[in-house]
């Protein structure tokens, strides 16, 4: 069920009034859980077995921790169950295929049967979210949740179930316990967030995808400029797609009185790669920071170890996105970039002498270059695209002027948003109202009726 479809509209129009009506009663959490399972089971009811398994394992682990003296085995149990599920459903095919490729390369006449497993939607997200609770309880950052239904609701909450933000139990589970009131400002805020998210998805991401998809499907058929523009367009497409989803998720959460964490903060206005990762998919980058980078030692064990930890975290993050070598290379590129620029970013020269716009352009150029590997179907395609961007003739790319206009408008808006002009501009009620009405009408008039899935659903 996608947020921008009629099915979801009908679903929410049923779920929301009942949610409001049952507020303050014992029925509210069961209702929310039921709705969330319907939402997730809509893709395939069998997927529910996975989420129930992950939920039960972590609930049991924390229960075990609270009753026994030995806490570590319970954490290991949780990690084993969750990562085991992830490994089986997401990486089994990749590992066996890579093994077979290796056997073939070295001349071993043997092939491991490649399992044909359908990747359940959003498994990487809910598995991480569920595991977080166990680890937080183990660390003492969170107390045990006595109500299984409430805990299951935390893991499966439908607005953020399939593509995040990956919530911490310290934030979301506590809100589910405390049930903060819903004011009309929450509803207004939720609608505002949802509208912006819908605009990002329908008007921008899906539009840019129409240019990007055919170019990346047949890179050998397109000139250098078309490939370059498709790469830039993809950089924006994935941002609009993912942050659009997040905005809608946060908007829905807000309408339900729940405050989900900020996941994006104008990442293409970042002035360094470190800054970029503090702005891009914040819930995942902080997750990796808290549960991978810091346990590895963080920056506490010297310069070399810091770089190794950083690189390892980035590569794992790449692999988290998908079981393909293209994602590994994408993660490795960011690791290299981060290691190479970490020192530079902390110098006075970089901070003061290089104009902000130049820094932003450099970061964007690097990030867009790395997206080539993220988006390409194969590593071979990615190299071909890079080679053709620099080597092939720059024929007429037929990139729509409307897309250029939209991107320019969005970039200008983000720039204004982070500048001193923000208050002057957005404080004006007619400007805000006019923007909201314009976005809604643009979606209604200009966008098609497709139901293109969100890119991050595949992870």
């Amino acid at each position, binding site marked *: 069920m996608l947020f921008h479809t009629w099915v979801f509209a009908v679903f929410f129009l049923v779920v929301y009034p009942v949610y409001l009506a049952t507020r303050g009663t014992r029925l509210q959490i069961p209702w929310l859980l039921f709705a969330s399972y319907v939402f997730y089971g809509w893709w395939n009811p069998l997927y529910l077995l996975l989420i129930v398994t992950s939920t039960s394992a972590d609930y049991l682990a924390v229960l075990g921790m609270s009753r026994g003296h030995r806490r570590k085995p319970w954490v290991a149990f949780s990690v084993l169950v969750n990562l085991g599920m992830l490994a089986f459903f997401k990486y089994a095919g990749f590992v066996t295929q890579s093994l077979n490729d290796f056997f073939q390369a070295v001349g071993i006449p043997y092939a491991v049967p490649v399992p044909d497993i359908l990747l359940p939607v959003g498994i990487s997200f809910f598995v991480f979210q569920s595991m977080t609770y166990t680890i937080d309880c183990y660390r003492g950052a969170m107390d045990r949740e006595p109500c299984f239904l409430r805990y299951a609701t935390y893991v499966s909450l439908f607005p953020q179930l399939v593509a995040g933000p990956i919530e911490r139990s*310290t934030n979301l589970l506590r809100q589910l316990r405390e049930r903060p009131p819903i004011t009309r400002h929450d509803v207004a805020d939720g609608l*505002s967030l949802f509208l912006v998210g819908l605009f990002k998805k329908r008007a921008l991401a899906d539009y840019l995808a129409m240019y990007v998809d055919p170019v990346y499907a047949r890179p050998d058929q397109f000139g250098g400029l078309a490939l370059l523009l498709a790469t830039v367009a993809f950089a924006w497409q994935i941002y609009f797609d993912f942050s659009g989803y997040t905005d809608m998720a946060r908007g829905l959460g807000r309408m339900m009185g729940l405050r989900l964490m900020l996941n994006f903060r104008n990442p293409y206005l970042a002035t360094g790669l470190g800054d970029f990762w503090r702005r891009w998919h914040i819930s995942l980058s902080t997750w990796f920071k808290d549960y991978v980078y810091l346990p590895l030692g963080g920056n506490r064990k010297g310069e070399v170890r810091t770089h190794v930890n950083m690189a390892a975290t980035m590569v794992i993050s790449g692999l988290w996105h998908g079981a393909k070598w293209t994602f590994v290379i994408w993660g490795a590129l960011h690791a290299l970039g981060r290691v190479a620029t970490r020192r530079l970013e902390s110098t006075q020269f970089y901070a003061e002498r290089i104009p902000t716009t130049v820094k932003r352009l450099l970061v964007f150029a690097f990030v867009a270059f790395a997206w080539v590997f993220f988006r390409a179907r194969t590593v071979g395609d990615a190299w071909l695209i890079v080679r053709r961007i620099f080597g092939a003739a720059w024929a007429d790319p037929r990139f729509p002027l409307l*897309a250029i206009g939209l991107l320019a408008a969005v970039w200008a808006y983000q720039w204004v948003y982070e500048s001193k002009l923000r208050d002057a501009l957005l404080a004006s009620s007619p400007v805000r109202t006019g923007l909201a009405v314009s976005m809604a009408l643009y979606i209604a008039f200009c966008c098609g009726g497709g139901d293109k899935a969100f890119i991050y659903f595949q992870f």
Partner: protein
Amino acid sequence: MSDKIDLRFGSNDVRLTPREWAIALPAIVAVLSLMPVVWAFIEPLRLEPDHRLPFSLGNDYWMYGRLCRAAAAQGKTLVVGDSVVWGHYVPKEETLSAHLNRLAGEERFANLGVDGIHPAAMLGLVEHHGEAIRRRNVVLHCNLLWTSSPRHDLSTEKEFPFNHPTLVPQFAPRIPCYREPFGERLGIAIERRLPFHAWKKHVQIAWFGGSDVASWTLGHPYECPVAAVTLELPSPNEPPSPRPDARPWAEQGLARQSFAWVELDQSLQWRLFRQAVQLLRSRGNRIFVVLGPFNEHMLTEESRAAYAARRLAVEDWLSYHNIPYFCPDPLPSALYADASHPLAEGYELLARQLFANDAFITFDRSRK
């Protein structure tokens, strides 16, 4: 642990207050609701004699609704049906309604046929886009070709693409060969109740090659979408594409056919045709049904007998429900282009037969 979880409202939001939403939401709804109404004043509708829906606007249900309103406003009798009524093989001056007008000596009949439509879709068309013809005289064409095979009848279990899927019943009755996912059907069922959606499709079909504005810019990257809306519409005389071979069926080399007729009591198309009749009657329409004339010359003996039995059953049903009808004998063989479409002379002959039919004369006189 990392720094405190960032729960700020947003990073590039447009944050409206409840009061601002109270202004924005009605404004959005008002624009979307009024746009189709206002557009009818902006876009000129040049009705020609014997006007019919231009072929390339065959899926433009907003335009169909507009033609319904125009015809109803002029008090015309509306001739509703599939490509037989539309006149697939003939120019607009040679259609059934055109010949009826000629015999009447005035523009009394309006061609509301749609090329490629079938009873299941006709029901949706009348229900959602033909509201304006309420309480008018309607000549409804019944084409038993749609029961001539499980595929025509849409009752085959094998999925295949058919015309006007957005007009057919999405949930009940179940159409076995229609396998759209539930979400898709729900979307169709909702959208066809929204006048804005029909209008948007009209703009897309008329000036953007059937695609949405955003998709259109990919094929026309350096053109302004607003400039593409020229307000010029295709001519009602544009021929179908591909252009049909308007010769008698025998000259085209078509052989006699043995159809795998569907039993009438199991036929989906017949059931939905009856629903369309009931719907029109519930809206106060006076209905006259023209049954056929089917090209029985093209049928094998066995198939002709099966057709005759079905025709009789339809006549029984119409009589039982007091619906006036005319079921002509087959036209001469040379006046058919295929199994159900007459050629120009065939339409002329049919019109003459209608004007000589007592039930039709009575029906025609009842016109308000």
